[in-house]
């Protein structure tokens, strides 16, 4: 029993690796079957949507996410088992048995007025089927048309909700009619990606069905799937796949990898591990008065190992996205969140190596976890690997400016979080007595120095990109201004400290305010809906941002408590 604290980190590490191993096994296993057909090969079939070639699995998942916020649907048959079923099964059902598919509850509706518009009395339920909405379709269209006369920014929540629902219904209809995605692959020279069904340009209202080899192969798959001839369906899939491998080898290999990537969900796994590490660290802090030499180091070492494993998984996820997209890691708001967390973790661990106070382990795990949660919430547009607008299409500048400036944002957040730990831990607990009370302000200061450097260099690289692209080094665009605010704020803290205007407590309070500045530059400027840089389109996050700012201000108020009242003060 005595050696348990020493063995504990190893035990935790084995558990974490076993957890990952289980996820890996699931990802590489044969996968689900529907109507007796193995879905795996169908999931890998390439389609083109949003300008990107992707596996059908990704398209089906992202469509379900846009419609209902989930990557799976509730359905299935008694043979396959009823419950959450894979997205590809849903899209196959939509194409081969639309009547059955219309009963799947894939639309998420939250607004009570929209529900009452649809004459839905069950106010608790949030997911609805096409069949439930269909009787009121004309009314939804009319309401959406009324709403669209009002500019998006001036719409009230009902108008936004009904416009959104209309957009979802239109998308559903597009997909159901096989106009989206483009499923007909270019097998012969001179062909391009095309939809199976399109409007006939020569005859008003008529449809035209593509008649290339790929179109016939895809139809054969759907026909045999709908008649329930599993063997014929698998044969059709195999022969089409063989042709695709011959003509589009890169897309097919990347697609197969992407299917595994989607199943593995590396960011989900690492967020779970970061949470575990955070809990281990918290317990470590709590037991430190009782067992400062045995359980405390054991728990912190375990937390550190779990963070290390989570970091490796996250790095794999980022690397996989780089491979799949052929782009540097940060291309949109979603990936910026993933990357900010990823950059903070090693910085925090470096700080931990300097200070050895344990708190930075906690900070690392919390930031890793929180940023992945934020990223998850930013993924509502479905496919997070969308194509880039022409002006942003420059791997060199994405790799330099965007990465460096994102590291600058990360460091500013990290400084703010260390300061929060310092303030809360110092005022409310005795856990920071002694060395940590000196080490944490030093770390905050050091991270701010780094943040000033990275945010300045990153911002300037952005200016140089702008000068190269449209001849304006600095355009006072909101996103540029946001970056300038972060640089100025970091410089303000440094100069105030050098001038002796503030000391440890002051640095901490101002570093916490840095969280507000960074959050505003990261999200707030996008909420203004302004400028070339507004890569993320946000609507509902305003409230979350406001709440975050209020919490930060409250924490700053805590920092103002005189040092004599701090429980950790010696």
């Amino acid at each position, binding site marked *: 029993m005595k050696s348990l604290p020493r063995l504990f980190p190893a035990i935790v590490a084995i558990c974490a690796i076993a957890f990952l191993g289980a996820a890996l096994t699931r990802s590489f296993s044969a996968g689900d079957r529907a109507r007796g057909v193995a879905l795996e090969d169908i999931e890998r079939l390439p389609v083109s949507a949003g300008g990107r070639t992707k596996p059908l699995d990704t398209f089906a998942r992202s469509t379900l996410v846009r419609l209902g916020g989930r990557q799976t649907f509730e359905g299935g048959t008694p043979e396959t088992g009823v419950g959450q079923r894979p997205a590809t099964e849903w899209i196959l059902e939509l194409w081969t048995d639309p009547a059955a598919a219309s009963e799947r509850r894939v639309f998420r509706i939250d607004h009570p007025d929209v529900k009452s518009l649809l004459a839905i009395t069950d106010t608790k339920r949030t997911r609805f089927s096409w069949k439930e909405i269909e009787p009121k379709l004309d009314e939804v269209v009319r309401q959406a048309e009324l709403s669209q006369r009002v500019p998006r920014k001036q719409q009230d929540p009902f108008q936004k909700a009904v416009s959104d629902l209309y957009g979802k219904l239109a998308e559903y209809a597009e997909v159901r009619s096989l106009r989206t995605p483009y499923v007909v692959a270019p097998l012969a020279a001179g062909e391009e990606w095309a939809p199976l069904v399109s409007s006939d340009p020569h005859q008003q209202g008529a449809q035209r069905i593509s008649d290339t080899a790929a179109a016939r192969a895809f139809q054969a798959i759907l026909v045999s799937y709908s008649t329930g001839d599993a063997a014929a369906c698998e044969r059709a899939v195999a022969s089409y796949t063989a042709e695709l491998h011959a003509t589009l080898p890169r897309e097919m290999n990347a697609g197969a990898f992407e299917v595994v990537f989607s199943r593995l969900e590396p960011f989900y796994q690492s967020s779970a591990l970061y949470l575990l590490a955070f809990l281990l660290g918290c317990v470590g802090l709590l037991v430190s008065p009782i067992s400062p030499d045995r359980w405390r180091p054991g728990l912190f070492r375990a937390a550190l190992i779990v963070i290390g494993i989570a970091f490796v998984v996250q790095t794999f996820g980022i690397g996989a996205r780089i491979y799949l997209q052929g782009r540097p890691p940060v291309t949109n708001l979603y990936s910026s969140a993933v990357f900010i967390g990823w950059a903070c973790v090693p910085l925090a661990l470096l700080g931990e190596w300097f200070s050895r106070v344990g708190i930075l382990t906690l900070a690392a795990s919390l930031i890793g976890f929180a940023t992945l949660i934020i990223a998850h919430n930013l993924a509502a547009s479905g496919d997070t690997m969308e194509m880039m607008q022409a002006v942003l299409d420059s791997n060199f500048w994405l790799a330099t400016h965007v990465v460096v400036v994102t590291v600058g944002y990360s460091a500013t957040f990290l400084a703010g979080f260390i300061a929060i730990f310092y303030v809360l831990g110092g005022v409310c607990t005795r856990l920071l007595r002694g060395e940590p009370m000196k080490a944490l302000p030093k770390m905050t200061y050091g991270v701010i120095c780094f943040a000033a450097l990275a945010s300045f260099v990153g911002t300037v690289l952005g200016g140089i990109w702008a000068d190269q692209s*449209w*001849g304006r080094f600095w355009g006072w665009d909101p996103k540029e201004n946001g970056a300038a605010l972060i640089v100025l704020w970091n410089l303000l803290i440094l100069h*105030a400290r050098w001038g002796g205007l503030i000391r440890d407590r002051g640095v901490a309070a101002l570093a916490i305010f840095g969280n507000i500045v960074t959050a505003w530059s990261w999200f707030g400027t996008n909420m203004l809906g302004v400028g070339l840089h507004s890569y993320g389109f946000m609507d509902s996050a305003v409230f979350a941002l406001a709440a975050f700012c209020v919490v930060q201000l409250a924490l700053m108020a805590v920092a103002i408590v005189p040092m004599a009242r701090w429980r950790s003060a010696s």
Partner: protein
Amino acid sequence: MSAASDLLRRLASLRLTVVLFALAMFVILAGTLAQTEEGVWSVVDRYFRSVYVSIPLRLFVPSKIAEIPGVVPFPGGLTLGVAIFVNLLAAHIVRFKLAWNRVGMIVTHAGVLLLLVGEFVTGAFAKEGNMTIAEGQTANYVEDMRASELAVIDASDPKDDLVVVVPGSMLASAGASPVASGLLPFTVRVVEWMPNSQILGPMQASKMQLAKATAGLGTQVAAIEIPAATGVDGASFDVPAAYIELTRDGASLGTYLVTPRLTIPQSVEAGGRRYQLSLRFERGYRPYTVTLVDFRHDRFVGTEVARNFSSLVRLNDAANSVDREVLISMNNPLRYSGETFYQASFAPDDSGTVLQVVRNPGWLLPYISCTMVTIGLLWHFGARLASGVRRRIS
């Protein structure tokens, strides 16, 4: 201690630095929020390149919550920039000491001074305009999208056109008083001036709107005023419009609608001669020509998202014996004769290109200054980090 050195010490104070940073942040925040209701260029002039600015308080509270009246007078970007410049210079004069561990900071701050100078030079001397060319056409002028002019053209001479222009700003401020000049064949009275406008087609406009003009195209289409373009809208700019009445010897020649949105000039007869009349963006003519050979605009399959744009142009400058083809694309501008041509936009239906033409004598300064600041900071913080690591290891 002399009064001068006392003043210098005060100017060099770090407390002042911190205050100036805080003020600068506030102006930047206000100038960003102001872009939700104002165009970016008017914001830049009013907030960032001004001596002082009146900041409306309503910017800081969403209009849905409350509409707060009143303004705060505040030092503008120019004042703050100069103050930071002086503060920094004074600090280095007072505390100057050449030592290895200070070299990083000296280089950094010298870079910052240069950055401030660079932004000042850009604000004072940089010129931006657009060159719009249809495929196969040639242009020899750059349009300033922030200023307009009323052009009256006498094309009776087959060799050269005689052009008289009235600045749009003069029309905008004319009010009821007529604009007259010996060079103009008629007097111009502004009936209505719209800083930003939109055209209503024959089916959209009401009878009353069409009756505002008594001659020319304005009898078939009408213009209505719309709110000024805001920074929020991105690259958009205001397109003015005016209803003007022309008179000669006391007799009216009719009320015309003029706006850059009408691309064909209108014909006016005065004193037995024909003139072409148009309100257009202010033109600056160049001694060379640019011909658009081919414009390409590729989209991602099945979407309207631009994959890239590029313009193949022929540059012709006879005086300097230049006659060559150049491909201008996103992130690959053409630099010629002190100006830089960027691929900015395109005409509807991809029938032509819009190039942004920039002349900025200070364009190189930020590059130098940034290199200095980066090297300085790396030196300074790197040295600190290295000593920290040494301490930690020992």
